[in-house]
């Protein structure tokens, strides 16, 4: 039995931390701020990671990757999220859009899309949710109608992260008379296609994050279909399983707990016993979340169905995110309401709390994950 990720992973972690320390400002809180310089920081950093061969660590060499292990990929995810995702909106392209194109794409799609993703020079968004198809994604109503040898897409997407920044969208639409999972088809759609309108949604997550995307008879060619026509559900399942494992929220929790511990120690502040106890329990919960995430990675690596393990990990990780966010606010007291560079940890705790509220909704709600876990439990012989 061995929990050690290995020397290569440890070296990779150290290398990433060195790069982040050198290149990312101490008060960086991600790309979704009012300061355009933050988006530029992510673009610069992605180009650097690409040059260093670190952007596509786990991609196969034939697609420009380093052929690293799933644990190398895990280390990258952890370090990036711990430091407020300095790849900005790139992580989605790297974590699942690229791998989905490798798995389901044509040779031409691979030639066209994989190099820019590997270089960190293109932003993708994900057009899944709709006003009437949130948790019940199979109820999506955006329709693709044959038009010549291509398609015209009509409908509306919502909660689309990065839509205002993205150059491409992986979009789920419905083809033909099928209902529910039948007929769902994935399209690779350029965001500058005629008929696309992006409307930002004000939210507690900060500017530009959530958007509505209106699709008014958007024309796309036959080469836009990813996988089989009508075979989109398989792509979605693969994508969501990747995304559920994909965000290493526990790593940011650990880092913030550690940074605040340092700050309190430097200030000579001793926590009251009840908060110290909560802190120790939070560290334990974070470890549990991390280990469950590793179990989901192992399940995927073994090639088994990842659904239940990924959902269990996601539930543990997102709940831990909120637990730590609340604990950090309890420690800060009235200072928790401050934001920006003058706030505790340059606003990182306030930012974390706001994002943590979304953790149990994004990429499939907590309740959907619970249903997946329960289904697996009840499916076992009793």
């Amino acid at each position, binding site marked *: 039995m061995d*929990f050690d990720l290995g020397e290569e992973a440890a070296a990779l972690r150290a290398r990433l931390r060195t790069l982040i320390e050198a290149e990312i400002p101490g008060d960086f809180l991600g790309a979704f701020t009012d300061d355009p310089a933050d988006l530029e920081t992510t673009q610069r950093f992605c180009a650097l990671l690409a040059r260093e061969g670190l952007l596509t660590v786990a991609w196969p060499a034939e697609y420009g990757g380093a052929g690293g292990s799933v644990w190398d990929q895990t280390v990258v995810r952890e370090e990036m999220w711990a430091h407020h995702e300095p790849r900005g909106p790139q992580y989605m392209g790297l974590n699942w859009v690229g791998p989905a194109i490798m798995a389901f794409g044509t040779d031409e799609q691979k030639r066209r899309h994989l190099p820019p993703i590997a270089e960190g020079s293109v932003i993708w968004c994900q057009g899944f949710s709709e006003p009437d198809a949130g948790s019940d994604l199979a109820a999506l109503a955006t329709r693709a109608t044959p038009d010549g040898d291509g398609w015209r897409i009509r409908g509306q997407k919502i909660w689309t992260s990065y839509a205002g920044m993205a150059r491409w969208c992986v979009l789920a639409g419905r083809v033909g008379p099928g209902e529910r999972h039948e007929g769902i088809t994935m399209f690779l759609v350029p965001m500058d296609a005629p008929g696309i309108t992006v409307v930002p949604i004000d939210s507690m997550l900060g500017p530009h994050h959530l958007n509505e995307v209106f699709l008014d008879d958007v024309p796309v060619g036959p080469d836009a279909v990813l996988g089989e026509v009508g075979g989109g559900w398989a792509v979605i399942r693969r994508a969501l399983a990747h995304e559920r494992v994909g965000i290493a929220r526990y790593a940011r929790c650990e880092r913030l*707990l550690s940074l605040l511990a340092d700050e309190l120690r430097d200030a000579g502040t001793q926590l009251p016993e009840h908060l110290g106890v909560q802190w120790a329990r939070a560290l334990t919960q974070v470890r549990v*979340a991390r280990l469950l995430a590793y179990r989901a990675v192992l399940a995927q690596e073994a090639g088994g169905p990842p659904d239940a393990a990924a959902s269990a990990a996601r539930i543990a990780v997102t709940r831990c995110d909120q637990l730590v966010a609340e604990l950090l606010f309890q420690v800060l007291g009235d200072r928790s309401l401050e934001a920006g560079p003058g706030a505790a940890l340059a606003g990182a705790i306030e930012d974390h709390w706001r994002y943590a509220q979304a953790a149990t909704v994004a990429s499939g709600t907590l309740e959907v994950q619970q249903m997946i876990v329960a289904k697996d439990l009840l499916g076992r012989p009793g």
Partner: protein
Amino acid sequence: MNPVLPRDAVEFGETARMAFESVGGIQAARRAEADPTSRAEVSGLLTSLGIDDLDPRAEADTAAAAAVLCEEAGRVALSYPVAGAVLRTGGLPTALVPPHHLRVDHGDLFEAWHVCRPDGRASTARATGPALGTRLGPFVCDLDADDDLRPVDHADPADAELRNWWLTLSGWTILGALDRAVELATAHTRDRVQFGKPLTEFQTVRFQLADAAIAVAGLRELALFALWRLDVAPDRARPDVLALRSHALDVARFVLRATQQLHGASGLCDEVDISILVRHLQPALRLPAGAEDTAIELVAAIAADGFDGLFPHGRVA
């Protein structure tokens, strides 16, 4: 990275499970409560399974076997102190006892014990009388020390190692019991029809089952992790061991309550297994310390030794 038990340990666990089921599983715990002398049968069974050769301090494979034996014991509320029995000092079984009371589950099963208190003081002790015989502590006995407890400043480092192993193995026992509790609740809610359909057709029931199963899955990861840490970094594993113990107690509180609740009124009846499991697990959850005192102990351990484990970010304020 290969966080799985050795195959031999897994197979040993399957053998132990069959052996425990062969004497009735949880039914044997009912028998023991009615007639405590029937625990001799369990003792013989454990001897045939090789319990005398399962000292976890010997090597990693033995530790894994001891852990799965404790887990299987937990699954059937085995009326025997398996964790203490595999940890021998001078031939005596080990028990961790509360700070002010030499109180041990199944304390009457052995003529004498090596008892350790949380502060490191230790001694040989013997049962002073019959077990409490209460519903929540049917086999709990009070002990008297042969001598004054060894003072803290003369604490034997070997006792620190014993305490870590005892806490870890008792964590595995709790894990087994909670895993079984989820199985029992799943089976009951699948079979029980109310309002014209099985209880598992209700979303709220599914949510509770899912949350209980995830809690147990997380505890299993922590139990494996503690076992591994005791192998690779025994001198720095105290926070990892206490984290397992603390988390096991927290998870037990939630999982036992949820799974018994899902049984409805039947879950309170001793003819239903969950009731026996919940009652007989109580000593393991209260001795040597309950959830809150254990969490306070964890804070101190983290302050002394950190909580990095593998991961270089864990600190406590």
